[in-house]
């Protein structure tokens, strides 16, 4: 508008708005950092650590056993959710496979049936062979595996994150199918 004149009051109001905007922007930084803390903290897999599952003598060769462990990252209000279950398969000697119980489809807990050598999921009907590879159903890949190492006769896995189909930082990629 050509006739617009800058008045003292109008100018002060604009400055006031600008001042509030600056303060708001300054406050937005810590607020955003607070909101995203669960994400930014997890950069470079800060949640992951090596968790001992027990001496390897607990795991008979050729068998698959359910093991529970306490999450490496816990808060005081976790209650019973601080535990996690996993399936440990000892192939032979120091050769293991440690599977997450979470189905690679949508995360329901799979159960091991030694008689038929299958993991079955109760939710949407996914099934996996004893080596974790996909057998049938909706999963697009095999079971998630935790990286493991055997140190001084103790089986240790790298855990700490919920394995999910899209973000599998903690676990290895898909395995070739087997039949």
């Amino acid at each position, binding site marked *: 508008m050509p006739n617009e004149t800058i008045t003292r009051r109008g100018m002060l109001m604009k400055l006031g708005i600008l001042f509030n905007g600056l303060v708001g922007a300054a406050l937005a930084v810590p607020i955003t950092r607070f*909101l*995203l803390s*669960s*994400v930014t903290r*997890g950069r470079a897999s800060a*949640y992951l650590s090596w968790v001992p599952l027990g001496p390897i003598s607990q795991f008979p060769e050729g068998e698959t056993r*359910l093991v*529970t462990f306490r*999450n490496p*990252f*816990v*808060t*005081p*209000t*976790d*209650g*019973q*959710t*601080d*535990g*996690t*279950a996993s399936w440990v398969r000892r192939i032979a000697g120091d050769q293991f496979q440690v599977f997450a*119980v*979470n189905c690679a*489809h*949508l*995360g*329901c*807990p*799979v*159960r091991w*049936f030694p*008689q*038929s*050598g*299958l993991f*079955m*999921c*109760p*939710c*949407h*009907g996914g*099934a996996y*062979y*004893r080596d974790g590879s996909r*057998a*049938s*159903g*909706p*999963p*697009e890949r095999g079971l998630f595996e935790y990286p493991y190492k055997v140190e001084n006769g103790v089986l240790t896995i790298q855990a*700490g*994150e*919920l394995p*999910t*189909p*899209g*973000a599998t*930082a903690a676990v290895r990629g898909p395995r070739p199918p087997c*039949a």
Partner: protein
Amino acid sequence: MRMIAKIGQWFDDRLQLAAPIRDVAEHPVPRNTASWWYVFGSAALTVFCLQLVTGILLALVYVPSGGDAWSSLQALNHDVTLGWFIRALHGWGSNFMVALVLIHMVQVFLFGAYKFPRELTWIVGVFLLLMTLGMAFTGQVLRFDQDAYWGLGIGASIASRVPVIGGPAVKLMLGGPIIAGATLSRFFALHVFVIPGLLIGFVALHVLMVVKLGINDWPMPGRVVRRATYLSEYHALTRKDGAPFVPYAVWKDLFFAACVLLTVAACAIYFGPFGPTGRPDPTIIQTVPKPDYFFLWLYALLSLLPPSLETPVLLIGPVIAISALLLLPFLSGEGEKSWRRRPIAVLTVLLLAVTFGTFTRLAEFAPWSPHMNAWSSEPVPERFLQKASALERQGALVFQAKQCRNCHSLGEAGGQRGPALDNVAVRQTPDQLIRQVIQGGGNMPAYGKNLSPAETTALVAFLVTLHPPGQAPARDASRDAVLAESREGRPAAQP
């Protein structure tokens, strides 16, 4: 009386609310809108108020902590006087609210009430629907039991599939790397502060627009909405054939709302509260998680979609559905309102109702899930074993022990993931059965590595006996011919 009037006047001199309230109450509405079809919105609002009240009452006892939430729900169910009833009211209120919002939406759609000038009312309504569903999901999480825990896992798995931001999105949703105390805390904040706050604001906007723009006139076939003329036509209608909203139309809203509240209370008393199921202990894996009623269709969809289509449908489907709902008033903001002249609208509603209804019904008995205990809890019916040879009985044992029963039913007991095997011998020859068992295929795992040749022989010997009494098992005619020829000493094949 004069004292009360004076006190009232004292307050109104300061509040100055009496005049606007009187305007709203007495604003004229077309007489034909005082219909029983127009009561669902106000009923949804009434149930929302019930949810607010019962929610606050529950919050007096509920502890939003991963370690204590489940116990506090048990205390509500068993220790606190009528705690079970308040929980049941809140749970059933939630189901009724989703149902009423959906019915209200269908009514608005079929009556063309989303058309000019009520486009924004519809759009705000779409957000109200999304928030109502958000409340239903977050509410299920606050019932911090096994279903809630594994339901969160499913939510995280879906979120993780979003390209690029999937991983961070999961951590943002869970408040950390796993489902734990922080997850419950943030869902509590969403369920109790964020979404209800938005809901209250959006409900206020929604109702304000209904009052300002007037209640949608009863759709008459042939009375077409045009942007240029609608408002003057509507105002002419309310002048000629209008009546004050209070009391002319409101009494039906009042009666229906009271009936709905009574029904919610009756359901609460009769059926009781929902859960909680087992403790949210992730090391207990003997669990069969299932979502609440209004998400059962999604459970079915996730089981039945082909794996390759699942991620695209999960990620693109909601975008398309929500965009379609938001764009609807802009794509058909004018024209016929009456459902009698809008066959495609009616068919769309029917198609959606049948689709969601079918998925929900399927999910109630989940034929795609293996019955985890069928192999040890459902014996092979006697009639399948009468006159069976030793080998066939051994086969029946293999059939049970190898958990075939978890996916295949016999005598209508057992899983339904695979086909029922009562008549399998009629469908497949012995050779086909052997191949299917060893190699799997279709949706069946291969058992080659887990069955010895002797077990396979016994199993197939048993399967071959599974046919109706009067019907012979399938056989390979060409193989029979070859065998017959070789028995007669002739060469097996001749050019």
